[in-house]
């Protein structure tokens, strides 16, 4: 998985490319832990993400919890399969999917 960060003041955009699974989700977790302090507007762009498993969902969920306390989080461009996963797991209700 490739993680691209773009920071603009208190706004952070993270673009994910590849697979967010058991093996790669710790990378995203580490990036979020380091970058989130002070961020009030988080965007996670999934346009190039092909795959997400429950390990990835857990990392996204904990980011959502942090952002609930300090601002907002938007998830962009999930592909069809990932959208469906968000749907069945109820994450589509938790995330603001733009």
């Amino acid at each position, binding site marked *: 998985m490739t993680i691209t960060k773009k920071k603009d003041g208190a706004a952070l955009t993270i673009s994910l490319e590849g697979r967010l699974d058991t093996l790669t989700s710790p990378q995203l977790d580490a990036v979020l832990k380091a970058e989130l302090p002070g961020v009030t507007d988080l965007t996670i762009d999934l346009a190039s993400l092909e795959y997400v498993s429950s390990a990835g969902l857990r990392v996204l969920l904990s980011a*959502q919890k942090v952002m*609930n306390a300090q601002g907002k989080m938007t998830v962009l461009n999930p592909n069809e399969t990932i959208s469906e996963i968000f749907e069945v797991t109820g994450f589509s209700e938790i995330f603001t999917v733009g």
Partner: protein
Amino acid sequence: MDNMKNAAIIPLSGRIDSANASETEAKLTAELPADGNVPVTIDMEKLEYISSAGLRLILRVKKSHPSLSVINVSPEVYDIFEMTGFTEMMEVRKAYRTVSVEGCEVIGEGANGKVYRIDGDNVVKTYKNADALSEIMHEREVARLALILGVPTAISYDVVRVGNSYGSVFELLNAKSFSKILANEPDRFDWCVSEYVGMLKTIHAITVPEGKLPCAKQKILSAAGRLVGVLPDGLGEKLKKMVEDIPESDGMIHGDYHTKNIVLAGDEVLVIDMDTLSVGHPIFDLVQMYNAYAGYSISDPEIVLRFQGYDAATAHRFWHASLAKYLETTDEKKVAEVENKVRCLSYAYLLDRAIRHNDTDSPEYKLWRERLLALLPSVDSLVFECSGGEETAPDPDALDVEATNENLPTVVDFVNSRVEATDCSPKAMMQIELAVEEIFVNIANYAYAPEIGRATVRVSVTDDPLTVTITFIDRGVPYDPLKRSDPDVTLSAEERAIGGLGIFMTKKVMDDVTYEYKDGQNVLTLKKRL
């Protein structure tokens, strides 16, 4: 034996020559027991010199007290005794040389003491017990027996004083234990397995003359007997009966065959630490091997690292590869079957040991007990064929791997390679991939934790309607993931619990998920129509 009680030990010191011989004799005679049958020992630790006048004196004592022996004789005085033929007339024991191990490299450590390198070619094995002489003599005796019977081993050539205790000295040229090799030279893993198993087979193929060594079965049978009242539902009786049914054997058993006790000295592989030698069925060696690699460290993988110098994952890999090689099979099912028999006895031994040491509050105790109780219902015999037999061809549709997260890509690739042939949609492929990840990662994280175990993944594709079936088999703790209630998907981020999501997603993307616990194995089957 009664005489032993009155045995006299009389010290002599300084110099004995013609100038003081008669004076010394008067003193000595005063201390001699009146009864000539009482054993007399003269301690010469402080004696520097003895002339022929002194020797004549010793001879007179020998005449009046025939069981005379002389101990702690310095090398100089010993030479005199030897030259004059005294060593053939009476028991003359040399003084033990004193060796200091201060600052010496510790190259091994066991329950009973440490092994130090005292110089390039020599090591000294020390014993914690201050009264170690009998232990040393015993070990030397069994090592000699083993060597004569064909086991390449080192025999101590000297006994020395080390501090307040004793040590035995071995010549071990540039010796390096297999533990050290495995820790520092990972590319020699396969070589280590091969030499290690080859040596074990050599030992097991040796027939020991009757009465020379104790019987390994006796120890485990006593342990099983004590567990009868400890294990519920007749499982203790079942265990004891199974141990009783292990056939007697006069094959040699090392008894502590782990990689610290196998050394490479020069280009020769040697087995050391022979004090636990016994006779019996090979399973008894496998039990102590399993204990060393996995049993003792069941709740704390650090124990292996501290003791062997390599990590728990390496220990597990080494154990598994060695067992498969020992059994001369690549059939994982057979390896797992024998491993379960071994684990039964391993846990039984460790449980009994903990009970005897009054150490039943530890997390290890709980795990040993749990694992033993889970295994016993499905194990009906502890006997197995050591080699040969009919080799069942490996199942081409099954993959057997160590259940670790690192192996996830291997498993995913394997399943994909089977599913790809069906020409199914990319979406279905991804859903299958998702289910495979969730289930395999669950096994990797929970089935054996904190130990490491293996999992088998089998894939089959059937027609009418086109269906893929994926079966996951592990031999870990019995666990039915389907019993878990589904997470409430209507909750907010704050309220959502972290667990249960993976199995829930699996159920959503598959058409059918079933679980059964069978033959000591968790079997989870996923079906998806394509």
